[in-house]
């Protein structure tokens, strides 16, 4: 059993500030949990506390049914990929991976078999005899992953393990990590900045900000119903478009009105009772460009950005910017006037005061 439970966990580095502030979370056995959050929000700190190499200020960490607060790091059955790799500089790549296995008294043949297998997966076979100082950042990173996976631990802690790889290698390694998770029956906690990684790998995603969890849920739940404007912005790449809007009721339906354009929503009628001031959040992929000026907003093209087979059209609407994502079929000139439409039922409605999603909070 390698479920993980965090109970009211807090961390203070200095007296005036909580780096982690009373967080609780239960991670199921064999679950793949992704931690997503802006720089400095405490992701690495959390991993290190689970690993046992950072002191706990308050609260408890359970691995399985055991409170591991007082358990030595080596006895927790975790392996960690450090954000800065932390390879042993005086050992070769092979020795780096063999170190932990030797201590665990794993036989030489078995050691070599595991290291060979890991090296194949990570494409570092030709590097085994080199020292870390002779490797590039991306190569070091793969060695760091290798050092963790040969240990076949109950719990994997990975701190941005793919951040230094090129796009192609990153896609390949992402798939390898997914496979690894399916093969190894371990629990994974995986820190990333990359929404694509978060959504494709995670059984659940925990979005953090300033030492707290903002939302924990499956990728679908978070994309479908981000609890507040921060989460909506963070999970959306390119960033979500926010517009001032108001709520209107017609025929027992609640509509969002943006400058005369009505957008259908599936909000319950009760929200009208509080008559909140709102901000509409619309994802770039839920917008389209149209000839039709009816039910669309007149905008001006600023520039376009081609991403693979898609294009991001950056637009100017009044004084703010607006992004539309569409498949790449034609080019747009700077200054060109276009009409942006919004697909029905794809608008997120946030309370302007509290920044909360009206749909998630009754």
């Amino acid at each position, binding site marked *: 059993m390698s479920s993980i439970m965090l109970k009211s966990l807090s961390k203070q580095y200095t007296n005036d500030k909580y780096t982690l502030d009373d967080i609780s979370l239960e991670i199921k056995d064999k679950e793949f949990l992704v931690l997503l959050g802006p720089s400095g929000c405490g992701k690495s700190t959390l991993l*290190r506390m689970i*690993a*046992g*190499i950072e002191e706990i200020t308050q609260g408890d960490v359970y691995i399985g049914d055991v409170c591991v607060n007082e358990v*030595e*790091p*080596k006895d927790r059955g*975790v*392996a*960690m990929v*450090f954000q*800065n790799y*932390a*390879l*042993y*500089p*005086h*050992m070769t790549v092979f020795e780096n991976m063999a*170190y*932990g296995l030797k*201590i*665990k008294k794993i036989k030489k043949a078995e050691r070599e078999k595991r290291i060979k297998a890991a090296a194949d997966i990570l494409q570092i076979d030709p590097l085994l005899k080199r020292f870390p100082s002779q490797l590039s950042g991306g190569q070091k990173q793969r060695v760091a992953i290798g*050092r963790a996976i040969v*240990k076949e631990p109950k719990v994997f802690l990975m701190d941005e393990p793919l951040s230094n790889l090129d796009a192609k290698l990153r896609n390949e390694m992402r798939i390898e990590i997914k496979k690894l998770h399916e093969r190894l029956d371990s629990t994974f906690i995986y820190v990333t900045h990359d929404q694509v990684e978060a959504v494709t790998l995670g059984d659940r995603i925990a979005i953090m900000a300033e030492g707290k969890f903002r939302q924990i849920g499956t990728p679908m739940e978070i994309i479908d119903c981000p609890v507040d404007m921060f989460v909506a912005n963070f999970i959306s790449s390119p960033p979500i478009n926010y517009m001032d809007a108001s709520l209107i009721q017609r025929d027992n339906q609640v509509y969002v009105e943006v400058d005369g354009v009505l957008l259908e929503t599936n909000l319950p009628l009760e929200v009208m009772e509080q008559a909140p001031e709102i901000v509409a959040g619309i994802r770039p992929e839920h917008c389209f460009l149209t000839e039709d000026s009816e039910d669309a907003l007149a905008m001006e093209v600023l520039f376009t950005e081609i991403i693979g087979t898609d294009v991001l059209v950056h637009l100017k609407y009044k004084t703010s910017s607006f992004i539309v994502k569409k498949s790449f079929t034609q080019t747009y000139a700077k200054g060109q006037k276009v009409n942006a439409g919004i697909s029905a039922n794809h608008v997120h409605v946030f309370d302007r005061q509290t920044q909360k999603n009206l749909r998630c909070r009754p």
Partner: protein
Amino acid sequence: MSLAKLKTGIHYAMLILLSVLMVFPFLWMFLISIKPKSEVYSGSLLPSTFHFENYIRVFTETKMLLYLWNSISVSLIVIVFQIFTAIFAAYVFATAQKRWVRYCFVLILATYMLPSAVTYIPSFILLSKANLLDTHIGYILSELISIFAVFFLRQSFAQVPKDVVHAAKLDGAGHLRLIFTVYIPYCKNAIASLVLITFIYSYNNYMWPSLLIKSEENMFVTIGLRRLFMSQAGYGMDFPLAMAACAISLAPMLILLAIASKRIIHSMANLYVNK
């Protein structure tokens, strides 16, 4: 001539002058060591005839060989103990988070600030109570731990990246394994420097051994040389012989310099120049 060239010219001139100043006494020593005894006070720098047999006389007429053996063997034993004890102490002081450990370190450093003469009398009394005066064991016991070595190693142990240590702990390493597979290999250059510095210090050590060691068969090179000067003072000193003995006493240091000059320069620079 450009200003830059003039500047390097002046630098070189100063370096050459200083080098000559440093080397001259050694050169003089060497020249006296090959003179006949009668020419020591002759006033000319160069000998009229060369008497290299003075060097052979050092080994036949004095106990220089024994002194050399004593000095080198005892220094090597001292190095082993000092490095060994320093490694463990440095590990504790470099890694322990507890406040009282840090206070201990400051306290120990403070004793390093004391003039070493302050400890001579208590050490002497202790060794005499233990009946270890005039023995190598007594000297080695009094040099088991070097505060300098502890400090020096602590500083380099503190350079080992925290996460590398964390990774090793997660890999299952305990204290001993951490020391021997992470700290020592990571700091092997610093340790090599420390070995050299310790050897040079121990080989040159004069004051304390001269108080402790009295009998001839236990003498080190430093005290042995003094004895050579003193013993002949009565009936006209044999300066060429004494100078030849001095030159021979330099031999181990010169060999060391030949083998590891780069490392010695590097470690001395590290020691005295703030990086």
